């Protein structure tokens, strides 16, 4: 059995009649189109929509204070940044398919680095811009009513603190563990390929 020609003959005895037909695969593709990348597209569309709404409100409503415009602009900028980041990520994945295993592993490594950069820099920038923008935007509505002001700012501060100090670190920790597991696995595979190159 250890002769290669025998092995090839054995290899080709694998039954493939349980595979879906091309028609069934076409049906699956129809489902895939609406599911797989939907979340990323949804984030892009909603961010752009939010950007448009904020800009429209700032343009139409005659606000009196510069803080409102500054706050609105910061929130609009954060939505635009979120849309751009997700769009760039989608574009990278769309350009991926025709590459060798070695290039693919390099792509995965770069994706991991991008994800870490996103968590450490881009996400911090987006959340900071949006949070500060939000607090500035609320000032005009509340400054004449001290009780409102205290209530709204307290609620906003608590919400932001929970998001920043509890939700974000937890999500970061969970994703970091996943990323580290991926890194170890791919480093091992990459090492296998590199050892071929040097041997």
């Amino acid at each position, binding site marked *: *059995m*250890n002769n290669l020609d025998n092995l*090839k003959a054995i290899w080709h005895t694998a039954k493939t009649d*349980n595979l879906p037909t*091309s028609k069934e*695969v076409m049906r699956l593709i129809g489902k895939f189109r609406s599911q797989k990348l939907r979340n990323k597209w949804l984030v892009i569309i909603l961010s752009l929509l939010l950007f448009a709404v904020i800009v429209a409100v700032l343009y139409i409503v005659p606000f009196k204070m510069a803080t409102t415009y500054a706050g609105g602009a910061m929130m609009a900028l954060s939505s635009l940044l979120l849309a751009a980041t997700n769009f760039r990520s989608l574009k990278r994945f769309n350009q991926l398919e025709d590459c060798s295993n070695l290039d693919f592993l390099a792509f995965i490594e770069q994706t991991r680095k991008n994800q870490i950069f996103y968590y450490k820099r881009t996400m911090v920038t987006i959340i900071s811009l949006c949070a500060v923008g939000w607090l500035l935007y609320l000032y005009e509505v509340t400054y004449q009513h001290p009780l409102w002001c205290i209530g709204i700012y307290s609620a906003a501060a608590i919400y932001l603190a929970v998001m920043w100090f509890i939700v974000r670190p937890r999500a970061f920790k969970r994703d970091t563990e996943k990323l580290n597991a991926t890194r170890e696995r791919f480093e091992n595979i990459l090492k296998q390929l590199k050892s*071929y190159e040097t041997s």
Partner: protein
Amino acid sequence: MTAFEEIYNSYAPQVYRVCFGYTNDADQAKDLVQDTFIAVWKGLPGFRHQSQISTWIFRIATNHCLRAIEVAKRMPAAELPFHLADTPEESPEEKLSILYRCIAELDETERIIISLELEGLPQAEIALVVGLSSGNVRVKIHRIKEKLAQKLKAYEQFR
């Protein structure tokens, strides 16, 4: 029949065997075949024939294999012979099962290379799929065959 359907009918069995060789799991291999052909369908309009279509498809398939987080049913070598010891004559299914098990004990890249080799891809094409030079692939295939032969011999000794 559309171009995609023709491609699917020609390559799905080959891709399935390669994915099965990598995962040693029929269901996971089937899922990988589907993922591969979803990617092929998506990429087909933009495919510029810079490489052969088979190279392109096997690149997609093997990249999906590498991406699959859990490779199921990889059995530790020590457990294997006990399942086989009382089998007097191997049926083709058993032979195939032993071959898959031996391949499953190899490293990830070795599994990909030997699966493509057994599938009958020219070594130059395997080199393009994996991203190594043809020379390296030739040497590698030689070593993997030796490794595989040793594993198969070890099985036979326990029979």
